């Protein structure tokens, strides 16, 4: 008890029941499993969001990290807040590899802005290091838009600001990350319309 993961451990223990594993419970029981798992997830991720960024280095006070549990529905309040003229100057994406081998992955970040995006890797002071990273903007397809609309208000528990709804994500920014074993890697996404063409996210050809 007392550990930030205790709640999640209890919920996972509960869901080991054959009903939880195979879906043979009544709906209200399934809803309760989901509620317990969500509470456990929230508690654990709050702990992760507080401590993992410190694994990477000195966290600037302005950076408040949080997971985007609905990124698969193209919903991520932090990354969607990066838009021309908005207060957000950059979005920092931090990846933690719990494996014992290097992870090279392509990640997809929901974005509301598609022009002039530049991705850079960040050092231990969360400052840019090296050249911009190649990235590509992929527009949401019909199904992704439908799926996003379905969950938008529940994902942000009804707090979806007008901006996120009307000017929310219209595309996903795809780029490659490389995270050493049991380590972190941090990347910034900024809008820099003066950057060279190669530095900016490339548009996709759609036909």
């Amino acid at each position, binding site marked *: 008890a007392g550990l930030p993961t205790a709640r999640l451990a209890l919920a996972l223990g509960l869901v080991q029941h054959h009903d939880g*594993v195979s*879906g*043979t419970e*009544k709906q209200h029981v*399934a809803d309760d499993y989901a509620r317990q798992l969500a509470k456990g997830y929230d508690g654990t991720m709050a702990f*992760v*969001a507080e401590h*993992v*960024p410190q694994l990477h280095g000195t966290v*600037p*006070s*302005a*950076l408040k*990290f*949080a*997971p*985007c549990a609905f990124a698969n529905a193209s919903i991520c309040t*932090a*990354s969607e*807040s990066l838009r021309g003229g908005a207060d*957000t*100057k950059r*979005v*920092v*994406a*931090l*990846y*933690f*590899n*719990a494996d014992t081998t290097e*992870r090279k*992955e*392509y990640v997809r970040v929901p974005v509301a802005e598609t022009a002039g995006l530049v991705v850079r890797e960040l050092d231990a*002071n969360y*400052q840019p290091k090296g050249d911009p990273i*190649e*990235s*590509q903007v*992929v*527009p949401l*397809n*019909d*199904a*992704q838009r439908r*799926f996003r609309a*379905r*969950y938008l*208000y529940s994902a942000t528990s009804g707090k979806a600001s007008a901006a996120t*709804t009307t000017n929310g994500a219209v595309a996903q920014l*795809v*780029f*490659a*990350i490389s*995270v050493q074993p049991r380590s972190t890697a941090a990347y910034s996404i900024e809008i820099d319309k003066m950057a060279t063409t190669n530095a900016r996210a*490339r*548009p*996709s*050809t*759609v*036909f």
Partner: protein
Amino acid sequence: STSAVMNQRVAVRPTALGEDLRAPGRSSKEQHSSGTAVVLESGVPAAVSTQDGDVPFKVSIALYNSSSGNAPFVDDSDNQWPIGRAGSTLPVPGLDQYPGPNSGAYIFRPNSSDPVRLHPSSTNAVVTAGPIVSEVYMSFDATLSATLRVYPDSDEVEVNYHVGPLMEEGSADAKFAGSEPSITYDTAGAVKSEGRMITDSNGYRAMPRERGTKPGYEPISEPAAGNYYPITAFASIASDTTALGVAVDRPCGAASLTDGAVEVMVHRRLQFDDSLGVGEALAEDECLPEEAGGDLVCRGLMVSGTHRVVLGSADGMPAAMRAAQRHNRHPPVALFAADTGSLDSEK
């Protein structure tokens, strides 16, 4: 008429339907470096190039309508009488049409072993190409779609599916006792699997399966449902040289009902209980606000998931499935922060 090479791995090459892609010289391997290339046939995937040249590769949906009673394969001893689900948004027609036995949470019981086969419409496939990822968005009907993605240096075809809401009021499938769609990955017999399939056993062991036989449960009375197995990690089929593997991101049912093809069930929405213990139909509704502070709108569950499909050598398939598992189920933990000020001060 022109083939636009996408991302040096995916060639959109409209080919005559049914053309034998394995004809000599047809391999698209010369056009691509080694690894995966999804060749499209008038907008829908037609082949994947492997070391042995192009392997035909098609994605379709097997839509099983659930048993509405009098299922031809069941003897009368089944007393699975329908129990409609109170409070469901499902249109529950007169129970007399559904004398059981029914598909339910415990049992997959289609009303026929031949599902409705949905193919992607080749008119509205959307192909998106770029320097990193190329993808093909295919819609099968208003509530079923799949996006195939190919990344550089990867032998995996990532399939992101979106399914639901199923059996909406007035939809074509609402008149059935249930709707149970599976995604089928078909190599048109190119992978000569001869009735064999491998499925994981709760993510721990790879179990050999033989179509039509199930030790202790013979004879199998249901040609389709009787050959479905629960998987939590992957299902694969192989011939001596080539193999097809599908890594999944959640527990589901999988089968190989024809040589060279694997199908994975992606969603279920059923009108009745199968009277084997739950006491209500498997019909998950979702009641969500569809505008800020709006009333809750109840509809069937929409699901989105990711399969990682690998077409490659039989020897390399176990390692490829382990790698696909890691990508699918253990991605790096991601955290995001919107920076409104530190950049200026640090600068």
